[in-house]
């Protein structure tokens, strides 16, 4: 086993036993990055020099017996997390040269637990997309098939795991942006409940939906990473003041008597046959383990994408107003007046998808249209939330596909934004309801592309979905399959 293939817990054990050093592990990953990046392009920035310094420091701590959960573990972060002194672009030209003066809370928490950051990962520009094709820094390829998208918006975070360029990564999920790429790249990805992880220092897209979460090689690593970043933060007033459970302790392997709901609206006609087959096999495995199944209904599922594209774009149009060319970010050289500076800087700095969403959101919030679009969407959001509350009265978790198809081809959906938006149909409702969901590797398509399984939990029910995901992993070997690069 190469050092770059190891999970967090495997590497942690080797570091603890002094079989390897963090410097060795970090060097192995940096060499791997150099070898596969020409094919994958998962990174926007590689921080080799700083990573080696941090790895040396980690080794000193390990030698001194001062070892935390992530000490010496090489991780990489979506380029949406502010990192002090290290360029943070959000994959946009408008932030091409932006150097943050502070760390996001998630970054500070990873550092406090000894993690070594090897770089910043590619994504859709401002996290707006499902394919990582809208990045100003070029597309990322799916390591399982370089002609396919890795999913998005955290496409770099998922591809880096699949291509073995980082031991674990962080992404963000506004409408599926962790779970969908995790599914397409064959890794584990968790979107925690809204408020579980601080959003401080995470570049905002849609503030009522955005949430930070891990992408990892297995469920144990996912629990370790969540435990590291979760918890109340005074700097994010929407983070929730609840104690952080020891998530790794929830992984008992036991699902006997667990009530799993199958929402009938998610098992629709026209679901990709490979995805359907994967779900059927997963259900059979859970039944064998003693879980109980019940059909449930989430009747407003069909309205989720429309609701999302009004709520998310409205919030985006407001959040992205800060990129005005005045205080940071790109400023147009051509501007003569102040209005000119705003309009030209934003025109030059933003890509097409970002402009389209700002336009939609501004329209939905504009005078005369607010009630018809934004307010209407917020009311339908209430109905969607109630669907979940009602379903969770009778079941513990929900089992669904993550995406209607395996990864599609690069370029296949770029000309039709609506088709791209519809690829998030099974992940978006979870964000609107503010609850948690995890994607776990559950199969391969006939053409050899990974297919994930989604488990949706009650608000702050991360332990139950992690436990169910871990039990599945114990009885399958999908998480051990590797992309050949």
């Amino acid at each position, binding site marked *: 086993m190469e050092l770059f293939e190891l999970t967090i817990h495997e590497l942690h054990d080797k570091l603890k036993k002094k079989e390897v050093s963090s410097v060795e592990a970090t060097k192995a990953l940096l060499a791997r990055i150099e070898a596969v990046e020409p094919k994958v392009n998962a990174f926007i920035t590689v921080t080799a020099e700083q990573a080696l310094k941090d790895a040396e420091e980690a080794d000193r701590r390990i030698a001194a017996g001062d070892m935390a959960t992530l000490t010496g573990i090489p991780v990489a972060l979506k380029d949406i997390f502010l990192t002090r002194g290290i360029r943070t672009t959000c994959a946009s030209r408008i932030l091409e040269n932006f150097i943050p003066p502070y760390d996001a809370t998630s970054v500070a928490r990873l550092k406090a637990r000894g993690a070594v950051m090897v770089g910043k990962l590619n994504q859709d520009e401002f996290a707006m997309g499902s394919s990582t094709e809208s990045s100003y820094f070029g597309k990322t390829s799916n390591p399982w098939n370089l002609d396919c998208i890795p999913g998005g918006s955290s496409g770099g975070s998922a591809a880096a795991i699949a291509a073995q360029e980082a031991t674990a990564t962080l992404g963000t999920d506004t409408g599926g942006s962790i779970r969908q790429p995790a599914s397409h790249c064959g890794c584990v990805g968790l979107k925690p*409940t809204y408020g579980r992880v601080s959003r401080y220092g995470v570049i905002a897209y849609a503030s*009522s939906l955005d949430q930070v979460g891990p992408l990892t090689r297995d469920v144990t690593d996912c629990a370790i990473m969540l435990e590291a970043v979760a918890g109340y933060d*005074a700097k994010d007033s929407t983070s929730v003041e609840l104690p952080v459970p020891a998530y790794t302790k929830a992984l008992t392997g036991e699902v006997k008597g667990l009530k799993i709901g199958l929402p009938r609206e998610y098992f629709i006609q026209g679901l990709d046959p490979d995805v359907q087959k994967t779900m059927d096999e997963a259900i059979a495995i859970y039944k064998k383990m003693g879980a109980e199944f019940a059909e449930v209904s989430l009747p407003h599922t069909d*309205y989720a994408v429309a609701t999302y594209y009004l709520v998310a774009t409205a919030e985006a149009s407001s959040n992205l107003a800060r990129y005005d060319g005045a*205080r940071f970010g790109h400023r147009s050289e051509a501007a003569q007046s102040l209005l000119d500076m705003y309009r030209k800087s934003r025109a030059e700095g933003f890509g097409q998808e970002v*402009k389209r969403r700002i336009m939609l959101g501004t329209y939905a919030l504009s005078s005369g249209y607010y009630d018809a679009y934004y307010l209407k969407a917020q009311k339908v959001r209430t109905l969607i939330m109630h669907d979940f509350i009602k379903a969770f009265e009778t079941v513990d978790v929900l089992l669904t596909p993550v995406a209607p198809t395996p990864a599609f081809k690069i370029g296949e959906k770029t000309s039709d934004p609506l088709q791209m938006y519809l690829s998030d149909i099974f992940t978006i409702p979870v964000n609107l309801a503010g609850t948690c969901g995890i994607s776990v590797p559950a199969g391969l398509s006939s053409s050899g592309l990974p297919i994930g399984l989604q488990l949706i939990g009650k608000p702050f029910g991360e332990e139950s979905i992690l436990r169910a995901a871990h039990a599945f992993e114990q009885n399958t070997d999908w998480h051990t399959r590797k992309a050949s690069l």
Partner: protein
Amino acid sequence: MKITKDQVEKVALLARLELTDAEAETFTGQMDAILAYVDKLNELNTDGIVPTAHAVPMENAFRADEVRDSIGIDNALANAPKRAESFFRVPKVIE
């Protein structure tokens, strides 16, 4: 038509975006299709439904009014496209 090119150009001004003629044309067609799609929300009767702004119900979050360190002027200005002394420099605002 849900939206015209003329309306798209007005929204672009509100959004402080300068669009090329070709962009305005493309966005008109694409926004028209998306707005036609989101119209499906009108199939639902939402009379008396309370709108949801946040999934987690929340009151105002207050903190103690204490003096704390901030990042300082030089850090705050470090990313400024143009600065003059301790200020952000922008094009002339008042004629």
